[in-house]
């Protein structure tokens, strides 16, 4: 399976993602934002970080970079595109997934492990994941998911919510919402579910020496689903 990770000026999780993808069997290539051609890929990842210093709005400048037109075309033709954290912010700015990510409700940069409940498994990202609840890491200042009421209705009607913040037992309540996101939303799909944007970082949970291994489960499963 071939993957590509796009590096923007200010990306800082691109190499972590490279390590994670390779560890679980992807042949990964790093792609520079100013390139125009996307290498042949089964998965494209927009990594976390602070592309363009979060100028204007997080992800807004990166969403207009040269490589993004190829990424958008790839996604629109059914290609798998995953945006993590800043990558999620870039995805919403391209319009590939609905909504926006606002400043966290309590104006804090949040850096901690959280639990997320998988809301929908009828997609290549979460199909066959045994667990209902995963422990992932979040580190963001703008992860407060917001969309209009019309968009929310559409997202819910099409089962586009991927994961919600919850407690370790999968209970989705306000008190387990770290950043003020509508409905505790931590990740969403596009309508066709080939594009996934999520705030949590699975690539930070791939080794016992890190703070957990639920990311390993995610990536092992992902590559199997793509085969």
């Amino acid at each position, binding site marked *: 399976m071939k993957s590509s990770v796009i590096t923007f000026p200010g990306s800082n999780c691109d190499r972590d993602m490279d390590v994670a993808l390779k560890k679980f069997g992807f042949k990964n290539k790093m792609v520079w934002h100013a390139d125009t051609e996307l290498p042949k890929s089964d998965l494209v990842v927009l990594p976390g970080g602070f592309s363009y210093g979060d100028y*204007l709005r997080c992800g807004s400048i990166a969403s207009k970079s040269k490589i993004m037109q190829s990424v958008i075309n790839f996604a629109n033709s059914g290609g798998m595109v995953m945006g993590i954290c800043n990558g999620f912010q870039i995805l919403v700015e391209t319009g590939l997934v609905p909504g*926006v990510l606002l400043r966290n409700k309590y104006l804090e940069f949040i850096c901690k492990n959280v639990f997320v409940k998988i809301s929908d498994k009828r997609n290549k990202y979460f199909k066959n994941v045994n667990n209902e609840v995963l422990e992932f890491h979040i580190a963001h200042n703008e992860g407060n998911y*917001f969309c209009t009421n019309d968009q929310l209705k559409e997202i819910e009607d099409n089962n586009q919510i991927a994961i919600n913040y919850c407690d370790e037992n999968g209970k989705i309540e306000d008190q387990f919402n770290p950043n*003020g996101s509508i409905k505790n939303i931590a990740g969403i799909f596009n309508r066709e579910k080939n594009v996934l944007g999520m705030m949590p970082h699975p690539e930070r949970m791939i080794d016992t020496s890190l703070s957990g291994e639920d990311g390993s489960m995610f990536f092992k499963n992902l590559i199997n689903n793509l085969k």
Partner: protein
Amino acid sequence: MKIPVIITLKKDVLDPQGKVIHQTLDGMGFKDVNEVRQGKYFEIDTKETDRDKAKAKVEEMCKKLLANLVIENYKIIDPK
């Protein structure tokens, strides 16, 4: 020609920064403030000399980049 643009958050969108500014003003003794909403100001200096054409171009910029219309409104100010 310089064209000013003001971007504001839509009415129903939470503005935590505006809220903190409000609380701070309140603590400083400005007790009669109802609400503070924070926005952005841009000044686009364009080569275009026709006022209507310039404004139309800036409107396109607002829609494509300067504002995110899910959460923000833009207002183009008439250049002097």
